[in-house]
Each structure stands twice: as C-alpha cells, then as structure tokens.
C-alpha cells in the first residue's frame, strides 16, 4: 500500500467539491478516465470526479495532490468498469489508497455586493472582448451581447447545431420576457443534450442560466426552469452532464465560472483575464456556460421593473434553495 511518509511523495485528496457524496461501503466504478481526471459513479448514480489539483474545482471534484505520482501508481489499473472501494475515510484503487477524511470542503463564495452600475460597466467590457472560435454554442455569444457574429458553420452538422442552438436561445429570451412554462419547455427541448462535449454544449448553456438565476435569487424562474430541465435531462442527456445540471441549479459550478460571476458583479479589473481563463477550459464548456450566464444577466436587466429585479444576493453560500437528493 502506498504510504504517505516523510520520504515519499504520496497522493492524497485535499479538497472536496460541495456536491460530493461519499457513501461509505458504496462500491464505485470508473466510468471514464482522462489525463488529469477520473470520473467515478456508484450504483445510485452518484458522480465523483477525482482530479489533479491543477484543474479548477467543481461541484463533484475530489482534488488530488501529487496527481502524477497517482497516475504512475495506477498504470494499467484504471479502465472503464474498474472498481473503487470506500471505507468511509479512504478510496481504494486496487492496492492504492487515497485518504479523503482530512480533505477540506470547497465552498464557493457568492459575490459580496454589486451595483447595477458595476454590472453594466462589466457587460460593456465583455462586449468589447473578442471570443475564441470553438466548437460549441458559445460562438453565439456575440449575438447575446448584441453584436454581429461573423462565424460560419464548419459543416452541415455544425450548421444544424447552430440553428437549433439559436432557436433554444431565442426561446430562453422569450421565456425571460413572458414567463410561463411553454417557452422554457421549448428552450429546454432544444438545448438539453445538444452539441459536442462530455457535457453537451446546450447543457452547459442551461447550467450557466440556472447558476445565474440562483446567484441573483430569482427563485420563481429558477424553480420552473429546474423542474423542466432536470426532468428532460433524465432522458435526454448523459449521466455526467445530468449531475452537473443538477449542481448548477443549486448554485454550484466550476470555480472559474464562480470567479467570472464575482468579477462581473464587482466590475473587477481582472474580469477579462478571468474570462480568458474560463474560455480555455475544455473545448467549449466554459465558453458555453458563460454564454448562458450572460444571456440570463442581460435578460434580467431587460425585465419589467428594469434593474430593480436584481437584488443583492441574500445567501452566504450557494446550495440554499434546493437540497440535493441522491438518486
């Protein structure tokens, strides 16, 4: 067994995401392995993401120090279907054990305070930015910001993706204008499970919207959107993405997206840098979620009552409105 001694560098789990549920005695299996992360799932469908500390924290992260040592130790032992045991304090990968009992719980902070003037200024700065050309729906961001998008579809599939995606965004905007279930249902039907990525691009957009609604305490909107999106997600998207959608509806997303939201609320000087960092995550996930978040911010600004509808966040931490139930 790999021991953590003075003389050896041993990997250990140092931080846990806020949605991590570690059921002692539950047997987990590896559902996917990437170079810096391993996704696990138990028989109840609970998702965990064991990952390198250099990756941003997320709702399901088990952030592991000395990843490269772990990777070397696990050579040939990590494959889809490999089992991982949990004794309540450690995870066991074959003969490798990773202690998690001492890990800290990561809790993203909500923006302390914000003013509409700061947010308007932040939006203006974002409008002046140029955005990367990536594969997902994030490419529609300029249109959300009232700018022309010059990007052409790469092929027929891409054209279809952008058409359906644009329809989904239009329905989202109409929903913000008119309320009612019809348009959010239409938007969710367009977007859930749509597009490329481990978490499909459309799911990331919806996650960004729900995260924004949670941040600004828009309980009524969030409640109906959550019900419809999560219901559709049961059938229409994959296991991992479903879990992330649920987390976003409770106000939990990647630490980088939390950082961008905080920077927007404070019109922080590093806003552009934070967006730059966010949009370099994965092929398009960060960018897609940013699209959803900004669409919601812009739409909330336009709602009847104007900017008054945005109230300073009242909760100290996310997770306030909806309590997670393991399936």
């Amino acid at each position, binding site marked *: 067994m790999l021991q953590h001694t003075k003389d050896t*560098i041993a990997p250990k789990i140092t931080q846990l995401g806020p949605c991590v549920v570690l059921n002692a005695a539950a047997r987990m299996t590896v*559902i*996917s*392995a*990437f*170079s810096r992360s391993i*996704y696990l799932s138990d028989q109840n469908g609970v998702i965990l993401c064991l990952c390198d500390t*250099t990756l941003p924290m997320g709702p399901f992260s088990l952030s592991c120090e*000395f*990843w*490269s040592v772990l*990777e070397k130790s*696990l*050579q*040939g032992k*990590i*494959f*889809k279907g490999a089992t991982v045991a949990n004794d309540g304090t450690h995870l066991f990968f074959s003969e490798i054990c990773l202690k998690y009992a001492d890990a800290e719980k990561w809790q993203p902070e909500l923006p302390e305070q914000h003013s509409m003037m700061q947010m308007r200024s932040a939006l203006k700065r974002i*409008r*002046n*930015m*140029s*955005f*990367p*050309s990536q*594969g997902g729906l994030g490419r529609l961001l300029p249109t959300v910001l009232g700018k022309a998008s010059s990007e052409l579809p790469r*092929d*027929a*599939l891409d054209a*279809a*993706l952008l*058409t*359906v995606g644009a329809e989904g965004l239009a329905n989202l905007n109409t929903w913000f204008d008119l309320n009612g279930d019809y348009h959010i249902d239409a938007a969710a039907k*367009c*977007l*859930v*499970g*749509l*597009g*490329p*990525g*481990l978490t*499909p691009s*459309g799911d990331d957009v919806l996650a960004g919207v729900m995260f924004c609604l949670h941040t600004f305490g828009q309980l009524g909107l969030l409640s109906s959107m959550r019900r419809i999106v999560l219901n559709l997600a049961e*059938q*229409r*998207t*994959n*296991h*991992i*993405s479903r879990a992330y959608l649920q987390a976003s509806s409770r106000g939990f997303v990647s630490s980088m997206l939390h950082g961008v939201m905080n920077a927007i609320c404070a019109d922080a000087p590093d806003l*552009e*840098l934070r*967006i*730059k*960092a966010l*949009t*370099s995550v*994965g*092929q398009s996930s960060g960018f897609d979620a940013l699209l959803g978040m900004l669409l919601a911010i812009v739409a909330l600004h336009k709602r009847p009552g104007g900017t008054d509808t945005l109230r300073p966040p009242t909760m100290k931490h996310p997770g306030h409105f909806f309590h997670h139930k393991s399936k």
Partner: protein
Amino acid sequence: MLAVQTIILPDTYRDSVFLMKLSVQARDESGAAQVSAMMGTERNKELFVRSGLSTPQVEAAKADDLVIAVQAEAALLDKALATVQQLLDAAPKKQAGAGEVTPQTLEQVLANDKSVTTVLISVAGDYARYEAAKALSAGLDVMLYSDNISLEDERALKKLAGQKGRLLMGPDCGTAIIDGVPFAFANTVRKGPVGLIAASGTGLQEVTCLLDRLGVGVSQAYGTGGRDLKDEIGGMAAFSALDRLLEDSGTRFIGILGKPPGGKTRTALLEKIKKSSKPVAVHYLGTSDYADEDAAGVSHADNLTDFSHLLATMTDPKAPCDTIPGPLPQAAEGKPGLLRGLFSGGTLCQEAAELAAPILGSKLYSNLHIAGFGELNASTPSIGHAFWDFGDDEFTVGRPHPMMAPDLRMQRLVQELLDPQVSVILADMVIGFGAASGQAELFAGAVREAEARSGGKSRDKVVVVSVCGTEGDRPSRSAESAILEKAGVKVLGSNARAAVWAASIAAGKDYR
C-alpha cells in the same frame, strides 16, 4: 457520391478537446467530407438526421454512447473509418499511461535528471507563481512563459531568484536562447560573441535573426519579461542577466533592448553599463531620447534593424551594413491609400507603427495603446491607417497566439484586401521554434482568396511582409519568402525596412 458510416462506442466519454482534434485530423488525413463526434443524446441524434449523417446505429445510440459519424466519397470511406479507429486506438495508450510516463511535475523531473538547470513554466497564472517559486527554491533558473502574474508576485519571485542566485526570465517571457538551446519562440541562429538581454520577445527574435544574417552569432539571449525594466521591478532580471553575460567567457559584446525603462531603473542600468568590462549597446523601443546614454558614451540605435547593425559593427567595424534590406522591390507600383498593419509580434507592430507615423502624416490607429494613436479594439473594424497586434490579449482569449494559430489574422488579411480604401497591407511573419509551420502557404492562400473574391481587383494592393527567421529554421526564411513572392507579396529584409517602404507607398512618397 457521399456515403455515411458510424462508429458507436457504448458508455464512453472522451475529452472534448480530443474529439475535436480527432474530427479534424481524421478528416484531413483521410480526405473525408465530414467527421463528427458527439454523445448520442436525442438532440444530437436529431442533428445527425438534419445533416444527413444518421444511420440505424445512430438511431439506436443512447445518451451515454459516443457517436462518430464519417461522411466521405464511397471510395474513401474505409480509409476514413480506419483513420478514426487508428486515432481512437492510439489515444487510450497515452491516457492510461501504459507505456513510458512523461514526467508531469517538477519533482518527477528532478528525481530522474540531476543535470537540469532551467525550467520553462507555462501553466495558468495562478499556479505559475507557485511552480516558479518551487523551481527557484530547487536551484533552477526559470523561464516564466505564463502571464497573468501580478507585479507584486513578479517582484517577490525576482527577489527570491536573487536570494537563490538564480535568474527568473518573465513573466510573459516568450523567447530565450541559453547555451545554444532555444526556449519557446526562438530561431536557429549561429553561435557568436553577442549576448542579448531583452524585455521583448519578438524584438529579441528580430535582432538574433538579423545578426545571424549579418554573419554575427549570439552567445546567450535572455528574456526578462516586458515589465522588468519598470521601476516597480527595478530591472532585477536584467541586472542578473547582465552579471551573467559579464561573467560569460563566450560573450564579448552586450545588447540590451526593450521598452524605455523607468527613470530610476534607467539611471541604475546606465551606471552598471558605464562600469561594464564589455561594450554594451542599448535600444529602447519608441524613444529617440538618449541624452544620458550619449553623455555616458553608450551606443544606441533607433530601431531593431539599426540596433542589429550597430551590434554587428561593434563585433567587426568592417561588417557590411547593407545586407539586411536585400534588394528592394523594383518600384513602388502601388497607389496611395490606407495602410493596414497585421502583426503577430507586439514589438514588431509597435516598431512599424512608430516608423510609419511620421511618413503617413495623418492620425494612426492601433489596439496597442500607443500614445498619440487612436484606440482600436478587437471588436471594432479597422479605421484609417490601422496597426493591429493579433497577439494582444483580446485576440488570444481561449485561442493560441497568432504565431501558433494564424487563422484569425489570415481572415483579417482577406477582409482588408477586400476593402476598397486600402492600398497597402503590412505584416510580419515570425517563423522558427514554436511558430506554426506553413505560414507562408496560408498567407499566400489568403492573398489568392481575396483575389478570387474581388475578381482580381485586390491585385492593385501591395502586400509587404518581413519574415523574421533564418536559413537554419525549418522551413527556412528563404523558402517561406519564395512562397510569398510567388503569390505577389513583397518580402523585405526587416520589419523596420518593410514598415518604412509600406508607409511610403501608402503616403505616395518616394522611399529613397
């Protein structure tokens, strides 16, 4: 006749970057019309139907299945599917680490190799400072390629480097050549007696390449990061590098270049230069005020080309001074109009803009925030005589630097060539280590595309390029230049020469 086949991988998740690369690589290698990889969600299955890529297998796929659809001419379909399969098979070996493990941490590298002296760090800014501190504490020199490091952190790291007797190059340091080894963006240059210290990456590349073409070699070329000469940092890296060059037996002459230092730093640096046992020349970008240097008898030059000549003549007073420009194009056959500069190197852009300004006479615009210039940003179109640095943060959000990924700049090239008000395009092309290969082909392709789209009208415009590279680079400078010239592009010998020549055409003035 196009046919479609699909590969379904049940309960499979793959990294989206990998899938994107797989699609592009499989399409390019096999000649397929389309290769698309997505999860088999209901919505994605509808997309496959809408785009004519659906098959019975796709219809049966589940949301947790990975669907790869290949559309190709019937004769190419098997090859395309085999290519996809090959790429899929190759990936897990690397991911699972079944073979040799590439070291992924500094500790692993140091455990396996005690001879390491320098580490290049290129991770996100938040982590970069920790990695840099770790490396300095382990007794290594650091080239910090990462940006997004605060001034405070830079100062702390450079102080630590000083305490440890190490050199911290950066942050945002893109070029260095140490003991003949190129780091990040650099070129294959001959070895020789000139040691360089630069607070500018492309500036350093331009000077090392021009020296190489003048037959003068480089002993060491240290980058310091663009802010090192500010008073807040006090030139800590520049002073350390200068000490090293003064001790280095292979260095007989020293050149220092960058933006003008802060007042205190400039004075301190000058004092150090005055006491130097080796001849030192300086070039501070964008200034012609060298009163203190003149008073102290320190050689200086006004642009990178003249600075390279100056260094060459220091090593050999008889060194030829007319080889850099090369033969000038026969005549300035273009007509006066607007000039548009499209650059991948920030220093090269600024140098060109400042050299062109007095020739053009009217107001210039740039996204480089140059004093006296109108402001441009990435979301605005060009205005008047415009100078764009495509390496600016605004253009590199979520995408590689234009030296690595020239596509955005090429799109803009086509756009500018179609603008009826534009008469001259000026651009740099930085080749060598770290840079994209085949840039000249892309550039020539963009020029041809503009010709086709304008019905040949864009041929009236003059496209002027300087290629920053050497004959030792692969592809070589002359090979890239030949491709450009074949497409009707005028290739000049240096950035400064190209800027002056292009501005002269745009202003309707005689270059000579």
